[in-house]
């Protein structure tokens, strides 16, 4: 505790010790008094200043406290106390990297401070600094070798850093220290399972097996499911890797019986069935006639053995082909329809990838339906008839036969008008057919039949969002959110309802409220940041409680979490908005609330505003204020930085940002490796990089996109853009068409970079052909794909072809032999409008005629009317008979 600037006298050192223990015991007001006394005598004592600052932070005087801590640190940079205090404050702000640095500084001045080493180890895990984590864990074990947790911690650190050999050595060493481990002890059992896991990962399969057998026999390992799972897996691996071994047959038999034991525990786990099959040499991914027969025989045995299990029957349906499939599917479907299993279609849907199976299923169910029509007067099983119609409606809807689906649904509703599923399916059919407003009406009809069904309620909200009815969606979702919440949206955000955030963000995007859309996409990011934060407490807890294997799974999940489709969608959608804001600087200004609207339509907008104003609505603010008053000054507020008030809840300032592209790039960068696996993320990356003139990055994005989907239409467009830019920039020296303006940019690109860019381009496009030829070749080989037509039109436009040609190319998408979908039509229409084509209206009307059930191609006035109508109650003509 020596400090250079101000050394305390013996008596005052005692006072400082008191101050430390006051803090430990969280006697904050007393601690502050003691600190004040010391500071009276030694106003420059850095450690006391830091401690007082820390206490102030706890007491809620954060800014003042931090100021004092900074001053204190300046006075005494060699005190571990000062650095420790600073680390705590940074940790409270979730600045883990910085906090880690401060802890390292603290350790320089007090290297064996156990608490600091422990905190360091937690931060090293959180920041995935596994190499230095090993050092910290070694240090902790050296300081306190008698705790099991510290041995576990070191072994875990080795495992995480990939050093399995050392992990094994630590585990063995610790066990040799125990004369006898505890029997029937869940924590020790987990510890030993971890040991097995390490051996398995090392490839010491026989050792792992022997160890597992011995320890479970002696009742040290008590988790039965885990024992079976480990044993089954290790035996299978042993057998597969040592086919020549004399023990192979024995391993195989044992593996089989272990997998079967697992099936007895859970007969619905299809992985177990596949493992049994694999053990008998049957690979479901690679079947021939013979192995298919064997697989089906085995699965039917299981179906008899587990008469209630669906898994073996479903697996058999995926395996079987032709007549065998028909033979299995028929009774499966019959039984499910008789029982009235609503999810039958979703069960079978995955089989539809095979058009023959789809056909057979249709025939089976249509036959069942026909059997009812023979004698409709006495329907012996009305419920089965109803579920049959329900299935057929889903079936035809899935195949895009919307009219047929609606006809069947009408029959079903006539038969039983009270089943919500029928209206929900009708809503889905209408949605798919391009009528979001009819879909809203139908979903609402379902909701009215069963108001307490959260699923229908959520769907109802989603469909309203899809129809651009944000306020109405909020209203309906509010029926199920916390009553005390500021707004339904605020509650759903707090509940981390990602499906809501994405849908509402998309809804705002579609209706052009880009500011609000951006806010929602960034709200998704906040949720994922919270996921990352959530793991923090487990780094210590899991090791103390020896919950290791689930802990490893969690770390793995955390490392991959940003690859979640919702996150990727949010990032890509936000990027698209940033690009639009960058390309059209007037757009941000147009999103500002005008003076008139702020005044006149404020009231009308207040609901929508409220939705966006989550977290800082008046009611919550007054609540915060009340809290402040009630809590007396001695209350501990902890170290976590309070969530700063959102100064821009509607994002109207955000859309004026002049660094749109940088923000997009920053958001995209959070995708890390997973960004390379998503074509949309790659394309977004390219678009941002090109605008930022980061051509190497753009080239990399194209290469990644090419690896994901080489034939993607939008990739073709990007290659054309890349090639075209290249002709004017890095290839210019070859063609020697110098112009002063271009050459300066061109010269700024170093020659090695130019050659990399050139290499990338020729890996994507044959060098000898021009971009025009490249595009017409692409179009020729994808002539029936509407997306390809659009991408080629965009490419032609980009290459400076006449607008009439671009337009007539787009109009070919309307031809009968091209499978234009509603979405394709909307995309093309939106592009035509975007380039201010004079034929946009013509295209809209053509689509409106082509998609008879759709309403999305109506004029905006017509759509506004439909939106208005779809929630109006049908006026009921009621008889006011008093007696009724």
């Amino acid at each position, binding site marked *: 505790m020596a400090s250079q600037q101000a050394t305390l006298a013996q008596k005052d050192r005692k006072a400082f010790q008191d101050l430390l223990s006051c803090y430990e015991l969280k006697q904050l007001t007393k601690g502050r008094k003691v600190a004040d006394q010391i500071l009276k005598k030694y106003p420059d004592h850095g450690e006391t200043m830091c401690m007082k600052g820390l206490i102030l932070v706890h007491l809620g005087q954060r800014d003042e406290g931090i100021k004092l801590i900074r001053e204190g640190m300046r006075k005494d940079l060699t005190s571990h106390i000062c650095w420790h205090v600073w680390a705590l404050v940074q940790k409270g702000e979730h600045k883990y990297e910085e906090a880690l640095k401060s802890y390292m500084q603290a350790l320089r001045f007090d290297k064996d401070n156990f608490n600091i080493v422990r905190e360091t180890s937690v931060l090293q895990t959180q920041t995935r600094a596994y190499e230095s984590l090993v050092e910290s864990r070694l240090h902790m074990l050296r300081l306190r070798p008698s705790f099991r947790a510290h041995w576990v911690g070191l072994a875990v650190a080795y495992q995480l850093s990939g050093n399995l050999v050392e992990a094994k050595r630590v585990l063995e060493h610790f066990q040799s220290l125990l004369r006898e481990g505890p029997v029937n002890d869940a924590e020790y059992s987990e510890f030993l399972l971890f040991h097995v896991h390490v051996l398995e990962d090392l490839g010491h399969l026989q050792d792992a097996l022997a160890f597992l057998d011995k320890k479970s026999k002696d009742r040290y390992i008590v988790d039965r499911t885990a024992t079976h799972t480990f044993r089954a897996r290790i035996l299978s691996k042993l057998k597969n890797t040592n086919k020549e071994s004399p023990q192979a047959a024995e391993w195989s038999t044992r593996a089989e019986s272990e997998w079967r034991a697992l099936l007895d525990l859970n007969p619905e786990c299809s992985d177990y069935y596949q493992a049994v099959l694999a053990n008998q040499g049957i690979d479901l991914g690679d079947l021939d006639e013979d192995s298919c027969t064997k697989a089906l025989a085995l699965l039917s045995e299981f179906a008899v053995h587990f008469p209630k299990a669906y898994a073996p029957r479903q697996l058999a349906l995926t395996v079987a082909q032709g007549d065998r499939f028909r033979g299995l599917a028929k009774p499966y479907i019959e039984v499910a329809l008789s029982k009235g299993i609503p999810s039958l279609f979703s069960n079978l849907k995955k089989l539809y990838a095979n058009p023959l199976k789809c056909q057979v299923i249709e025939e089976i169910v249509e036959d069942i339906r026909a059997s009812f029509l023979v004698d409709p007067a006495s*329907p*012996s099983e*009305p419920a089965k008839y109803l579920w049959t119609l329900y299935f057929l409606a889903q079936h035809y809807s899935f195949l895009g036969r919307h009219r047929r689906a609606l006809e069947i649904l009408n029959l079903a509703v006539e*038969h039983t008008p009270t089943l919500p599923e029928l209206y929900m399916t009708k809503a889905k059919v209408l949605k798919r057919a391009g009528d979001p407003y009819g879909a809203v009406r139908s979903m609402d009809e379902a909701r009215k039949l069963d108001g307490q069904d959260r699923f229908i309620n959520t769907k109802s909200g989603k469909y309203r969002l899809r129809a651009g009815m944000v306020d109405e969606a909020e209203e309906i979702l509010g029926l199920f959110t916390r009553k005390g919440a500021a707004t339904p949206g605020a509650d759903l955000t707090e509940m981390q309802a990602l499906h809501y955030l994405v849908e509402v963000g998309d809804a705002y995007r579609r209706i052009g409220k880009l500011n609000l859309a951006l806010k929602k996409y960034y709200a998704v990011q906040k949720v994922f940041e919270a996921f990352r934060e959530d793991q923090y407490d487990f780094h210590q807890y899991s090791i103390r409680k020896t919950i290791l294997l689930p802990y490893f799974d969690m770390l793995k999940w955390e490392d991959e979490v940003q690859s979640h489709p919702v996150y990727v969608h949010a990032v890509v959608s936000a990027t698209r908005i940033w690009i639009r804001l960058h390309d059209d600087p007037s757009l941000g200004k147009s999103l500002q609330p005008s003076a008139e609207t702020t005044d006149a339509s404020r009231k009308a907008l207040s609901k929508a505003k409220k939705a966006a104003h989550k977290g800082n609505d008046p009611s919550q603010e007054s609540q915060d204020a009340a809290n402040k008053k009630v809590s007396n000054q001695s209350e501990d507020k902890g170290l976590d930085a309070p969530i700063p008030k959102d100064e821009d809840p509607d994002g109207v300032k955000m859309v004026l940002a002049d660094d749109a592209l940088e923000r997009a790039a920053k958001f995209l960068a959070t995708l890390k490796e997973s960004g390379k696996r998503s074509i949309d993320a790659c394309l977004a990356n390219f678009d941002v990089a090109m605008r930022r003139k980061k051509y190497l990055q753009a080239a990399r994005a194209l290469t990644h996109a090419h690896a994901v989907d080489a034939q993607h239409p939008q990739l073709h467009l990007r290659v054309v853009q890349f090639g075209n830019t290249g002709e004017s920039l890095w290839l210019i020296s070859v063609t020697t068409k110098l112009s002063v303006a271009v050459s300066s940019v061109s010269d700024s690109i170093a020659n090695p970079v130019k050659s990399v860019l050139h290499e990338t381009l020729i890996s994507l496009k044959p060098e000898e052909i021009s971009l025009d030829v490249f595009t017409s070749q692409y179009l020729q080989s994808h002539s029936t794909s509407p997306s390809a037509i659009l991408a080629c039109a965009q490419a032609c436009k980009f290459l400076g072809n006449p607008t009439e040609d671009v337009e007539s190319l787009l109009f070919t998408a309307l031809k009968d032999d091209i499978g234009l979908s509603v979405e394709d039509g909307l995309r093309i229409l939106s592009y035509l409008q975007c380039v201010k084509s004079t034929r946009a209206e013509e295209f809209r009307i053509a689509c409106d005629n082509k998609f008879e059930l759709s309403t999305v191609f109506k004029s905006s006035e017509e759509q506004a009317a439909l939106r208005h109508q779809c929630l109006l109650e049908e006026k009921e003509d*009621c008889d006011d008979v008093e007696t009724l």
Partner: protein
Amino acid sequence: MASHATAQTRLSFASLTPQNVGTVRKLNTVLFPVRYGERYYQDILQAEVEPFCQLVYYNDIPVGNICCRFEGRDLYLMTMGILAPYRSRQIGSQTIERIIESASSHTKPKIGRIYLHVQVSNEDAKRFYEQHGFKEVGIHENYYKKITPRDAWILERRLQNADK
């Protein structure tokens, strides 16, 4: 399909709530030729009539309802109906018997009788109630205002436990 007639049938009942009253509305629009006013839908949600206002489910599908109200010590059966495809399988019988049973054991008030109106053209309905112990006690002329025939039979069933 006779071979499949063994499929199990489950009958269940649910009390009315503001959440499922939409199902009652939907049923009434197809079951009855008259439209009921908002008063009706408020009344059937009252706590005291809960045992006598029920939704009927056949294998979890809502197929019918029964709704009564108190008139002093009388229980007046306002509506009862089962969707056409689900008739002739004892659903209605089980439903009315359930109501009779609840009414018989009801105290505060003790219920003296259950009564109802049946349109004079509806012989089937009349026979159904007679099978369950109801007797015709009169005709209410011009009971219906918007449908013909306008007259209705009055049917009643006296309950055993009612004190004399």
